[in-house]
């Protein structure tokens, strides 16, 4: 099971800050993970936006970055100033 974290407006869309989910075998990197989660969780493109950064096990990475079923993967929209 992987842990997926959704921050900021993504947490509002998903309705929770995180989920634990098995990752399908065909999902091998952050790019395919984004696409799968965006469709299956009803993000309606919000997860695919370029401004949403991704971190794997607390390290910010660039797409596509390998992921496995034991990773913590975080989706981070632009941070809030003000």
């Amino acid at each position, binding site marked *: 099971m992987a842990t997926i*974290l959704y*921050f*900021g*407006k993504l*947490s*509002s869309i998903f309705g929770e*800050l995180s989920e634990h989910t098995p990752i399908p075998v065909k999902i091998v990197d952050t790019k395919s993970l984004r696409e799968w989660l965006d469709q299956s969780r009803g993000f309606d493109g919000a997860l695919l936006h370029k401004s949403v950064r991704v*971190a794997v096990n*607390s390290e*910010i990475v660039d797409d596509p970055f390998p992921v496995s079923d034991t990773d913590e993967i*975080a989706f*981070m*929209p*632009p*941070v*809030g*100033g*003000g």
Partner: protein
Amino acid sequence: MIRITDHPFQIADAVAEFERQSAGAGAIVTFSGLVRPQSAEGDVQTLHLQAYSPITENGIQQAVDAAQEKWSLSAVRVIHRIGDMAPGDPIVFVATAAPHRRAAFEAADFLMDYLKTEAIFWKKEITASESRWIEPRAEDYRDRTRWNQ
């Protein structure tokens, strides 16, 4: 040196604690950011903040390291709230101690620019009519570029 907390804190307590840590300094600057009662959208009821540990702490630590490299500082303190806050509640406290006042002023200013634009926090403002995630203002980015030379 860096504390991210979902518990309320008092500015006067933070100052008293910092003063004890910075014995021997000639100058202490503190900045306190408080939840404003009004926003563009109306009366603020709640400000909600999220952080992502340890990425948030690591980023702030790097900014503190950069400040300590740039200025001669004897002590630095950053406290940042997460969770739900009400108008008037402290959100952020930054304190710097230095032998001379210019270093203390500039380092506090620099750290606040980092915290306002690059620090990893997500902010949601809740008014009577809506709930809205906040993005950085152009003004905050402008302030931040002052330190790039």
